[in-house]
């Protein structure tokens, strides 16, 4: 079966969908025969296909400058990979999964998001997704969360819950809930983030499976970065404060410098870009 995914990175989105459907039929047959091992094997391959489909999507969305939607697809992939790793050990060449993981990690570094909303919830009743039995903490049904039964991953379905609140966090359990501003006049959501670095990268990569990498180095903020500004001059960031009480305080701090290593650069600009940390 592994050979059917040998060239998975060369398959189109539609071919991936077709293959997923074929595997679904085979899986249903194995489940009817109660061949749990084979059904689980197919679940593994279907999950790899889903990851590839999501990666195709995220690439397209980011290329089209739909940044937040692309980010959500990347988050979905990260969750799927985490579930998959429990059942599959792979090396760097297998199914291009390492390339996908590394790309996501690199993109997380250069994405501008830092603050997230996080729901606080109280879960009062849960059911098992396999047997639909209500979960008793002392005498559970025996199906283990994350394991594969009948070709599907076991999870819990919350049937009674209460939302306690929303908090702002920097390290959310999942990273979907990005904070956006709202236009006070129109009530419309405003995307206030600067995606220059993402655009810069995507101008130089042309397909999801083109190899690229990110090299990060550390630089120090120097007085000369601000030109000839005096300590008592108004700060150049337009805060209205004196330089010494505003950006001047950042002198000596460190910020990341990013270099992208790509195979097939466009002629647009040099392949280096520096971002002043807005910490």
């Amino acid at each position, binding site marked *: 079966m592994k050979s059917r995914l040998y060239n998975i990175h060369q398959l189109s989105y539609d071919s991936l969908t077709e293959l997923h459907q074929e595997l679904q039929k085979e899986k249903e047959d194995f489940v009817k025969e109660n061949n749990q091992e084979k059904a689980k094997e197919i679940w593994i391959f279907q999950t790899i296909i889903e990851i590839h489909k999501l990666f195709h999507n995220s690439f397209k969305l980011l290329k089209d400058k739909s940044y937040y939607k692309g980010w959500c697809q990347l988050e979905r992939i990260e969750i799927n990979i*985490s579930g998959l*790793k429990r059942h599959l050990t792979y090396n760097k060449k297998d199914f291009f999964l*390492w390339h996908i*993981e*590394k790309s996501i*990690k*690199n993109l*997380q*570094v250069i994405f501008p998001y*830092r603050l*997230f909303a*996080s*729901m*606080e*919830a*109280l*879960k*009062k009743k849960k059911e098992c997704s396999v047997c639909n039995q209500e*979960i*008793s*903490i*002392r*005498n*559970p049904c025996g199906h*283990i*969360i994350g394991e594969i039964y009948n070709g599907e991953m076991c999870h*819990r379905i919350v049937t009674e819950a*209460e939302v*306690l*609140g929303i*908090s702002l*966090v*920097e*390290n*959310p*359990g*999942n*990273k979907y809930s990005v904070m956006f501003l709202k236009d006070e006049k129109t009530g419309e959501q405003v995307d206030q983030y600067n995606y220059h670095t993402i655009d810069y990268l995507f101008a130089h990569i042309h397909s999801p499976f083109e190899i690229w990498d*990110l*090299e*990060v*180095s*550390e630089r120090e903020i120097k007085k000369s970065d601000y030109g000839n500004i005096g300590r008592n001059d108004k700060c150049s960031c337009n805060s209205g404060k004196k330089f010494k009480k505003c950006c001047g305080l950042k002198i000596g701090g*460190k*910020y*990341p410098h990013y270099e992208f290593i790509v195979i097939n650069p466009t002629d647009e600009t040099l392949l280096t870009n520096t971002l002043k*940390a807005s*910490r």
Partner: protein
Amino acid sequence: MELTINDSNDNFETWLNKEFVTADLKKLLADKSILLIPFENLRDTPNPLMFPIGTENVLRYFRENLPASQTIDICIRDEDYQEFAFYSDYKRLGNFLIKSVAVAVFVNILSAYVYDQYIKEDDTKPQIQIIDKSTNTTINNHISNLTGKKYLEPTHIKFSVTVVDSVGKSKNISYEGPASEIDDVLKSLKDYEE
């Protein structure tokens, strides 16, 4: 990494005499050497007793791995069990109350649990090194610090253990920090082994 060790007034007797512990529950928990105890009044809710999401998994793992000489249970009636999910990426393992005779076993199982659940996966993830361009060497600074992005940190865990000795005296050890430090943290528990 934040590790705090304090004297504690909590022991098995104080917990089993709490108002919410019914006579049947008390009987059930009487001879247990490890208890998962609830958070109390974490938020203003009608039932103020709650456990962190993932408690089901922790309890199962301990039950599967404990030797016959030690036993674990959860200090709540089945019908009163509820769990909170704060969705910050700190993995809360819970509050444990353990007899000092169970320390050695507890340390081994908790260490294995943290490894299986978190460290093993963290170790397989791509790492981003920060390079010193002048020397072409790696700088000892994590990418999460340099970029100010906490979600790039490796998995962090949070738990608290109260160890009760044979005369009922207790010490509480609380930890909040990287999962990878678990073995160093659990070493401090071994001082209270009997």
